[in-house]
């Protein structure tokens, strides 16, 4: 007897998500992660000036906004043959890191923690459906406290980004050709002070909390294990033409290490509500068999 369960909405993420699971004789036959929100930025960018890309594509997502702006900037650097100074590269990377820190801290504490930790039964945590709470009361209480501490440090990470970028999210100064704000002593000093608070939080709270959860939930490492194939396309660019990666690119396949072959990476819409017409992807919400607005690679 097969049974269909719609787990919806999946909360605590940026966007709208539902999961449909089909169970047959106690086995999961199908699990469809449904992105139920159409964005359409590929179409929005068409017919606009390429220099609109940095500001406009940041608006795809609020929590990882600069990642999109950075890629837009790198492509425009290439298109215009820009030469980047080392100082500009440092500053760009400081801004990108600040956005990453903001993202990771908020993801861990605001989005993930309520899956492991019991929160006070009042808004916005009322009727929490914690199905596998395991922490001792003392640890639980400490981690709830860290949720509140994370509020301030995540804000401080975005303060670093706004300091050099004008605003956050959707910063303004990391653009084609470099950065529009100079790293003057006052700004560097302020950023260092903010970073010191963030680092202290990471060392004293984020890392120990991660280790605690990894230990208490160590059986989770064995659920849904996939083949050990990992890819990095490199991170934090340096060099006059963005040619160097601070964190190198690579593919790990079992015990083998190789360079990624980007031509082998393909975007597919097999299960997405899109259809190809005249070489263009058009939205097709009635496409049979499709279940998501999200594409896959």
């Amino acid at each position, binding site marked *: 007897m097969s049974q269909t369960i719609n787990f919806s909405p999946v909360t605590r993420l940026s966007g709208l998500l539902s999961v449909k699971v089909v169970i047959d004789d106690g086995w999961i036959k199908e699990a469809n992660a449904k992105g139920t929100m*159409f964005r359409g930025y590929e179409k929005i960018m068409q017919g606009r000036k390429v220099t609109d890309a940095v500001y406009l594509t940041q608006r795809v997502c609020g929590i990882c906004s600069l990642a999109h702006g950075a890629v837009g900037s790198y492509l425009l650097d290439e298109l215009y043959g820009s030469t980047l100074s080392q100082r500009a590269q440092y500053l760009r990377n400081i801004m990108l890191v600040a956005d990453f820190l903001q993202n990771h801290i908020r993801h861990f504490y605001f989005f993930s923690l309520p899956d492991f930790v019991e929160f006070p039964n009042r808004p916005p945590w009322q009727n929490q459906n914690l199905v596998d709470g395991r922490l001792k009361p003392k640890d639980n209480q400490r981690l709830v406290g860290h949720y509140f501490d994370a509020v301030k440090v995540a804000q401080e990470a975005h303060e670093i980004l706004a300091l050099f970028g004008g605003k956050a999210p959707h910063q303004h100064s990391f653009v084609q050709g470099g950065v529009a704000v100079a790293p003057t002593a006052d700004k560097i000093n302020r950023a260092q002070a903010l970073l010191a608070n963030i680092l202290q939080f990471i060392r004293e709270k984020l890392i120990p909390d991660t280790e605690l959860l990894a230990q208490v939930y160590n059986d989770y490492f064995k659920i849904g294990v996939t083949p050990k194939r990992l890819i990095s396309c490199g991170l934090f660019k340096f060099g006059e033409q963005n040619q160097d990666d601070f964190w190198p690119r690579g593919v790990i396949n079992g015990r083998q290490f190789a360079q990624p072959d980007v031509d082998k990476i393909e975007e597919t819409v097999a299960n997405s509500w899109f259809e190809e017409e005249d070489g263009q992807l058009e939205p097709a919400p009635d496409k049979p068999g499709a279940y998501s607005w999200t594409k896959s690679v």
Partner: protein
Amino acid sequence: MKRNEFINLCQNYSPYQGNKGHSSLTHKILAEVSSYHDSQTEKLPVIWLETNCSCDNNISIMNTTYPYLDRFLEETIDLLYSNTFMAAQGQDAVNNLKAAANKKAGQFTLVVEGAIPLQEEYNVVFITSQGEVSALEAVKWLGGLAKYVVALGTCASFGGPSAARPNLSQSVAVSEVLDREVINVSGCPVNADWFVGTLAHLLMYGRPELDNRNRPTLFYGYTIHRHCQRRSYFDNGNFAENLGEIECMFSQGCVGPKTRADCPYRKWINVNWPVEANTPCIGCTNPDFPDGSTPFFTPLSENSNE
């Protein structure tokens, strides 16, 4: 409870009154204290619906300082439903929403973050055993029950980037699908102060004064250009030749002259704003953002959209 009654209560339950020991006094007092506490902590009940948007507004609101986010959630609003913050998931989350909508009908503030696609299948907020609930359905349902409706961000206020051409989802502003007043708090994203300040106004003084676009005049009363620190450069015809320079950014596509917001005073996260960062204002609070602002970096006077 009046002062005299309270003193009487304490005397009646004093440990010196024989068998009515002081632990029963604690019981009596705790109940009183907690009901006093409840009556004193009047908060704004809020249902926060996310529709067609990048969720940048809620990230921006997490950047609020004084009050910081935790204090805002604990002391200003009772966040009864929020895709981003609530702990409940799946059916439990939907139950929270239904309970809040019933229990607080006529009292809650509906915050809508995102534009509303008229092509309903382009934005489904959740799926129950009865079927899909689209953004349009959810907003119509909750909009009919709310005391106030606040459109959060430029997408919810005016369509924004979600309705940028070619607008395949036919996204529109919240005010276009509801037959009632909608308070628009625009911005891409919103500045945390504009939103937190608007909700504080609703809580403390009720409906704020609104401009002709239904935005609180408190934040959107004047143009960026009017209060810009670089106005003297503009008045003297001193324009930047590139991004990164100290002169007026009009030449770099600044749309401050037609954009209403208080960024020059307010700033972002208290430290900076786009013109101070030597880049143009791109008019993210405007009803015609982004189509009326692109191509960016092109002077307003030469922009074909003008």
